[in-house]
């Protein structure tokens, strides 16, 4: 047994010694034979010759002896591996180029997949994530819901309580809601992602604390006060330095000191993939923070997300059916007393449904799901194009080694052995690239995430490789290896050894096939890269359209200031006074041109809408209109165009008639062909305000409202002072005369002077709107990068084929030149030959592009995926690059020296 092992190890690892012994052994045999011949009078030389002849194909015998040594797969693989490494080391330039380009390709693909995996595929790091089910209302029902929607999709707390009481599908129904917490004790706000959670949130997720303890249902009881805070592992590391004695330390949340009672386990970032939390608080603490808050009792504040854990034996489908079945009772029991009468039937007719939550939930998925798949497809194409170039290189390598291979075939090596040796080279290249690619992907994926993250909206994704990433990497590597190695290896091992040996170094008949394959590859490269170039052009133009879009207002030199007093809210008189001082303080800052208050910052994604109909018409004729409550100065600050009538004025107060300034679209839709000033309309009752009549006092130009991509909507600006009670604080837009960079500190000082208790956030409007285009910017940037890379790779491929074609025709060109052909004709004929390939690629590529770009439809703005101008431009651009790539070798063809070419023979 031990002998056996020693024998095998020796065969595998003392290869050279074993080989030498085999050679010695066979030589001994031949010499013995020669001795016999010699004894019969033959001279030594002749004797040896005869001996060798009689012995037969010595290499074949060696080969077979090796096989008989047994050894098996490992040895063969090890042998081929070493052989491959040796051969590759002999051509370092090729090896470096091949590994480098494949590393880039595999790395980029893996990075893309890692992000995609982290965002879309990865299951939550909690106990049995597949049992988790998110409970929400369908979009249609939410759209008909009334009240405040601080989060979306979400439901009111009382509905959740009702749900807990009546459902039978889940062992627990817990809930959560995210909110930006302010961790600064005073002054400028320090925004931190926070979580409100029900007491059974952590137990139901099966999480164990990294330190201290997590909340239990006992913590989350009405009137609980401040049972403490649970912080995330990342927060504990970052803010508390991983202090083992962090329990009992206090942090400031919304200006209240709260004790830390525990640290959540590492890797747990909440149920929203892509977002994380710093601090979690129990729902019951909410009233302690905000005594006047109605969030836990209001049936019209839609803000929490319930999640259920399925009972054993229940499926998501069954739970969904169950929830839908009990929906009528749920909504009947939870009907809020303040619900507007007109909307009650819609509320009672709503349903709750179950959606699988194993991978968590995030708005990022809708935002970035398609883009990530598209980008992965594009990087995949780039890898393919790059692989095609390497295949060509491998083919060329095979051609160069044709003689060596033929010789080995002639000496008795089997084709199978040659094939596996040639493939081994691709395996070595692909493996090295996959390993390097994995490292590169790790860095690159972080960069990708940072590309779409902002300081205000950080994105936290778990990117550590899991089995999917490893499988992806292995598959990409394997695929690259097959593409790279198979065709050249099969070709190289197929040739007839005699032909190759006879023809010397020059082209063999079989080479024509090589050229055919190369040409086919180049056509494919051009076709695929055209798709990527079209995509790049489309995304770039779409981004350009967004940037160039007329917003209807000016964003430069506008600061957004959010200010508020900590809870509890002061009495109305104090609140009104604080507000007046605040606005006065802002206006008093030197360099401030105007200040306006608002409830919605344009283009920040928020919106408020209600049904509106003309006075005298019936509600049934009403239509959806969008609202922004503003003060005097808003329209001026944003540089909006006041077309007729007047702005909201300081004289529009709670006691004066309700007034409105409408935009052009509203006027056109509701009052076509009529002067809107002085007309009256009514607004449907909402949970906070009864049905009301407004008089139109002004008309402003259209402006973008909720998001840049939205079509212009009918918007109504109403006086913020005519809302219910005054609130101490709000959102202020400040237009300044100098650049914002110098200005923000002055605003901070002024606010601190006005009232030291004020909490505030200051940011630039322009930057904020730019941030809302991050996805479009990322798509434009990445697709341009990939498109450019694809075009470059295709150009390299074309150049190679053109150069090779000319090399093959060198003699012919030489003869033609010698016979007096015009050099320009030669160049033209070469160019024509390549132009045919390019044209074929472009035609196929156009067809592919017309089909493939449809996938990008939802992401494009102001441009159709089949936009003829874009497609034409892409064809022209890629065609020009491609022609240029072939023109260089074509010029070289013209410089062929006929004499030296012909002398070669």
């Amino acid at each position, binding site marked *: 047994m031990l002998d056996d092992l020693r024998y095998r190890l020796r065969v595998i690892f003392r290869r050279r010694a074993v080989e030498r012994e085999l050679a*010695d*052994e066979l030589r001994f045999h031949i010499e013995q034979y020669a001795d016999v011949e010699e004894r019969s009078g033959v001279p030594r030389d002749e004797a040896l010759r005869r001996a060798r002849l009689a012995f037969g194909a010595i290499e074949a015998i060696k080969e077979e*002896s090796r*096989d*008989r*040594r*047994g050894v098996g797969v490992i040895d063969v693989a090890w042998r081929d591996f070493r052989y491959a490494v040796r051969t590759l080391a002999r051509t370092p330039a090729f090896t470096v180029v091949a590994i480098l380009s494949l590393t880039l390709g595999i790395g980029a693909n893996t990075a893309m997949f890692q992000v995609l995996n982290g965002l879309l595929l990865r299951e939550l790091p909690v106990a049995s994530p597949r049992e988790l089910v998110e409970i929400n209302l369908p979009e249609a029902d939410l759209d008909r819901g009334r009240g405040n929607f601080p989060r979306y999709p979400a439901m009111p707390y009382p509905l959740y309580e009702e749900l807990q009481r009546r459902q039978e599908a889940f062992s627990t129904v817990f809930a959560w809601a995210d909110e930006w917490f302010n961790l600064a004790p005073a002054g400028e706000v320090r925004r931190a992602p926070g979580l409100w959670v029900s007491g059974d949130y952590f137990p139901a997720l099966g999480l164990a604390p990294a330190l201290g303890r997590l909340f239990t249902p006992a913590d989350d009881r009405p009137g609980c006060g401040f049972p403490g805070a649970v912080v995330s592992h990342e927060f504990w590391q970052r803010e508390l330095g991983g202090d083992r004695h962090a329990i009992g330390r206090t942090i400031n949340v919304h200006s209240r000191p709260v004790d830390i009672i525990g640290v959540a386990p590492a890797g747990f970032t909440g149920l929203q993939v892509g977002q994380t939390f710093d601090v979690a608080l129990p729902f019951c603490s909410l009233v302690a923070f905000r005594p006047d808050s109605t969030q836990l009792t209001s049936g019209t504040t839609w803000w929490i997300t319930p999640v259920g854990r399925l009972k054993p034996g229940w499926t998501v489908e069954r739970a969904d059916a169950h929830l839908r079945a009990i929906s009528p009772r749920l909504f009947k029991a939870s009907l809020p007393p303040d619900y507007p009468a007109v909307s009650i039937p819609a509320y009672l007719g709503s349903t709750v449904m179950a959606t699988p939550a194993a991978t968590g939930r995030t708005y990022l998925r809708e935002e970035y799901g398609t883009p990530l798949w598209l980008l992965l497809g594009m990087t995949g194409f780039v890898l393919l194009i790059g692989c095609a170039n390497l295949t060509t290189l491998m083919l060329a390598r095979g051609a160069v080694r044709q003689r060596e291979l033929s010789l080995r075939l002639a000496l008795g090596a089997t084709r199978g052995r040659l094939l596996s040796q040639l493939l081994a080279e691709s395996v070595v290249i692909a493996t090295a690239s996959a390993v390097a690619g994995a490292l590169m992907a790790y860095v690159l994926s972080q960069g990708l995430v940072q590309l779409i993250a902002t300081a205000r909206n950080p994105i936290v994704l778990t990117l550590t490789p899991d089995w999917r990433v490893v499988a992806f990497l292995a598959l990409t590597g394997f695929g690259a290896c097959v593409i790279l190695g198979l065709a050249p290896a099969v070709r190289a091992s197929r040739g007839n050894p005699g032909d190759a040996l006879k023809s010397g170094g020059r082209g063999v008949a079989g080479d024509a096939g090589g050229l055919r394959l190369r040409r086919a590859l180049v056509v494919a490269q051009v076709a695929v890269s055209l798709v990527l170039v079209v995509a790049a052009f489309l995304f770039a133009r779409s981004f350009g359209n967004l940037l160039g879009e007329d917003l209807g207002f000016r964003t430069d030199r506008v600061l957004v200031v959010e200010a508020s007093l900590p809870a509890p809210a002061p009495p109305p008189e104090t609140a009104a006074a604080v507000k007046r001082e605040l606005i006065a303080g802002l206006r008093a800052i030197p360099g401030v041109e105007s200040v306006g208050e608002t409830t919605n910052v344009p283009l920040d994604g928020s919106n408020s809408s209600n049904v509106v109909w003309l006075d005298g018409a019936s509600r049934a004729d009403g239509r959806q209109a969008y609202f922004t409550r503003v003060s005097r100065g808003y329209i001026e600050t944003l540089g909006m165009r006041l077309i007729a009538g007047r702005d909201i004025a300081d004289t529009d107060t709670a006691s004066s008639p309700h007034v409105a300034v409408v935009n052009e679209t509203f006027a056109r839709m509701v009052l076509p062909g009529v002067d809107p000033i002085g007309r009256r309309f009514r607004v449907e009752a909402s949970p906070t305000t009864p049905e009301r009549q407004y008089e139109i006092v002004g008309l402003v130009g259209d402006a973008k409202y909720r998001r840049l991509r939205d079509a212009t909507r009918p918007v109504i600006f109403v006086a913020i002072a005519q809302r219910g009670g005054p609130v101490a604080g709000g959102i202020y837009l400040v237009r300044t005369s100098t650049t914002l960079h110098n200005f923000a500190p002055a605003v901070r000082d002024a606010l601190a002077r006005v009232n030291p208790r004020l909490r505030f956030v200051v940011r630039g409007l322009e930057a904020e709107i730019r941030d809302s285009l991050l996805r479009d910017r990322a798509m434009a940037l990445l697709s341009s990068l990939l498109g450019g890379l694809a075009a470059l790779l295709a150009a390299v491929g074309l150049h190679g084929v053109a150069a090779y074609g000319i090399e093959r025709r060198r003699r012919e060109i030489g003869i033609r030149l010698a016979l007096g052909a015009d050099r320009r004709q030669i160049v033209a004929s070469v160019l024509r030959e390549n132009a045919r390939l390019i044209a074929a690629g472009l035609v196929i590529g156009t067809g592919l592009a017309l089909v493939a770009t449809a996938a990008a439809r939802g992401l494009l703005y102001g441009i159709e995926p089949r936009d003829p101008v874009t497609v034409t431009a892409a064809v022209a651009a890629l065609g020009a690059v491609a022609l240029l790539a072939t023109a260089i070798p074509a010029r070289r063809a013209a410089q062929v020296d006929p004499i030296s070419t012909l002398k070669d023979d």
Partner: protein
Amino acid sequence: MGDESPLLLPQGTLDLLILRTLAVEPQHGWAISQRIQLASSDMVRVQQGSLYPALHRLERRGWIKAEWGASENNRRAKYYALTRKGRAELEAQTTAWHKLTLAVGQVLDVS
């Protein structure tokens, strides 16, 4: 060398012949082929093409082991010797061979 064409060895018989030859004393490849040829009155001629692969196969199975030594004319030669496992194998195969030839002979004689 006789005029008769040499016999074709049935599959696996070469192994048996090698083992039998080595049962006498350790030998190198050349000598093994000569011995077999001699012992079979030139009826069996071993092709080098199959001898060496066979030797390596037997060595791998652990039936024979190899050692380098000096040949009669003082060349370095690889000597193969039967192992204990090989000797047992030889006995088993010899018995099997006898049984087989007997049985085959009987069948042929009947007809």
